């Protein structure tokens, strides 16, 4: 897989189509698995890590799954390329910073990524656009079954699938849904949502998972309990909660429009105007303004840009993406200039009213 080809397009999960795509960016399911015959990654020396990687790489490259997977050895990549894969959500930040031998199998649509030698021997994830957990589960379950024909997983009849950290043991499943909640953030109602989620044992994280800030009003809701409940029950509990949050966000959006349509229209239009014209812009401001524009489009207040373009810009304006596009290392100030130029260009070419 050539990473430079990836810069020209975006993952299928960003296309902004699935169910509830006005609020739900993506659905993701991750399974943690370990091979029975090797020590866990943190206890494996360089030699054993290399054996694990070789073994799993061979299995992944020959997997007869729906989507063929290309394998990338992360340990051979430059830091910039690793960061690029993190920004596209194909590998974790932990894996990008790892010094040992590790890799990832990725489908060309970027819906599937199988991380090798992350915290566990194997971390498999499927990403889907919109609210589509059932499809994500079917696909990851299928891949898990196929791999299981080739390898012996570490499993215990009491504790289930065995993982390096007991917080993932049992099903090894992490079900997460990425939500765009600008109205709940603007009205500070989001605090109530956090408190309610905490009470029922669900985690809330930012765009890039554990420890990342909630930029651009994006929040990832995911399960924490992995043992004692079936995969189906865990998925259902996330679905039920997300349905409630969607209703809440929509009610608040409607109220905002009703109370002061003009002020809201002004706010989202100004955000769009800045993005169309800025000559230098930080990542933080970009996220903030794109969030406003995204809500404006979904409420029918802005029609000069489409949702998939906005979704893509969230990812493609990140530091490693800009540097890959320019084929050069850029310092922070240079990135701000490159970012503004890229956004101006994308918004001009995607404007349905100006382009021929």
């Amino acid at each position, binding site marked *: 897989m050539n990473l430079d080809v990836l810069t020209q397009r975006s993952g299928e999960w960003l296309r902004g189509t699935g169910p509830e795509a006005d609020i739900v960016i993506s659905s993701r399911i991750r399974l943690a698995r370990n091979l029975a*015959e090797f020590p866990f990654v943190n*206890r494996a020396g360089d030699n054993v890590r290399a054996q694990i990687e070789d073994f799993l790489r061979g299995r992944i490259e020959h997997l007869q799954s729906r989507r063929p997977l290309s394998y990338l050895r992360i340990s051979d990549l430059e830091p910039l390329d690793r960061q690029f894969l993190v920004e596209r959500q194909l590998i974790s930040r932990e894996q990008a910073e790892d010094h040992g031998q590790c890799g990832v199998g990725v489908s060309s649509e970027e819906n599937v990524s199988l991380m090798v030698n992350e915290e566990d021997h194997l971390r498999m994830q499927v990403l889907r656009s919109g609210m589509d957990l059932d499809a994500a589960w079917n696909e990851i379950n299928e891949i898990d079954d196929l791999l299981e024909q080739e390898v012996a997983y570490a499993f*215990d009849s009491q504790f289930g*699938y065995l993982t*390096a950290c*007991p917080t993932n043991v049992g099903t090894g499943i992490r079900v997460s849904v990425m939500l765009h909640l600008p109205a709940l953030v603007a009205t500070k109602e989001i605090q109530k949502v956090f408190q309610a989620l905490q009470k029922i044992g669900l985690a809330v994280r930012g765009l890039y998972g554990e420890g990342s800030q909630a930029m651009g009003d994006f929040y990832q809701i995911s399960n924490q309990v992995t043992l004692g409940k079936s*995969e189906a029950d865990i998925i259902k509990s996330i679905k039920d909660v997300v349905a409630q949050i969607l209703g809440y966000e929509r009610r608040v959006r409607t109220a905002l429009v009703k109370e002061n349509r003009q002020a809201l229209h002004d706010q989202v239009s100004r955000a769009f105007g800045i993005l169309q014209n800025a000559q230098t812009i930080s990542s933080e401001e970009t996220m903030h303004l794109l969030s406003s524009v995204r809500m404006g489009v979904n409420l029918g207040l802005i029609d000069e840009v489409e949702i998939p373009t906005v979704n893509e810009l969230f990812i493609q304006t990140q530091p490693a993406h800009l540097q890959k596009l320019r084929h050069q290392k850029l310092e922070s100030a240079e990135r701000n200039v490159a970012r503004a130029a890229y956004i101006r260009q994308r918004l001009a070419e995607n404007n349905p009213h100006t382009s021929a």
Partner: protein
Amino acid sequence: MKKCEQCSKPAVLHITELHDGAVDAHHLCESCAKDYLSHGSEPEVDEVESGLSQEDDLESDSSESIPEEQPPCPNCGITFKEFRSLGRLGCAHDYSHFREELSRLIENIHSEVQHVGKVPKRQPDASRQQFDLIRLKLRLKEAVDEEQYEEAASIRDQIRRVEADLRSPSATADS
């Protein structure tokens, strides 16, 4: 969270006792736990200590030692203390080796101690051979590091035998 088995307050203490190998678990709130531990617990504490010190005797004169410290995992060499400071286990066998301690921890994290949900079609935990492989591979590395090449060669032969056994259809069928 589990409720206290004596009253309906939340259970904060989880006591696991061994009676001649049989496991007896109690979930109690703070006040019921105090009552429980101060009444009639003496003979049980003795049993717990004697049960564990039998294992300790293999190593040293530990008839008086505190029965908390488990020996390290024979496969990966990690101690429970090391795990607590690292937050990561060393190998799959740790879950069997530290089953008691981990059950308590896992109950705190997940409120349950029994997996439900997907099960692999072939269950490798039934096979000791997987764990033998972990141990052999670590020993192989040590032997190579210490330039004990003859020993390394013999370990490699053993690894090959176990791997061949594991891949033969009869081994997977009855595992």
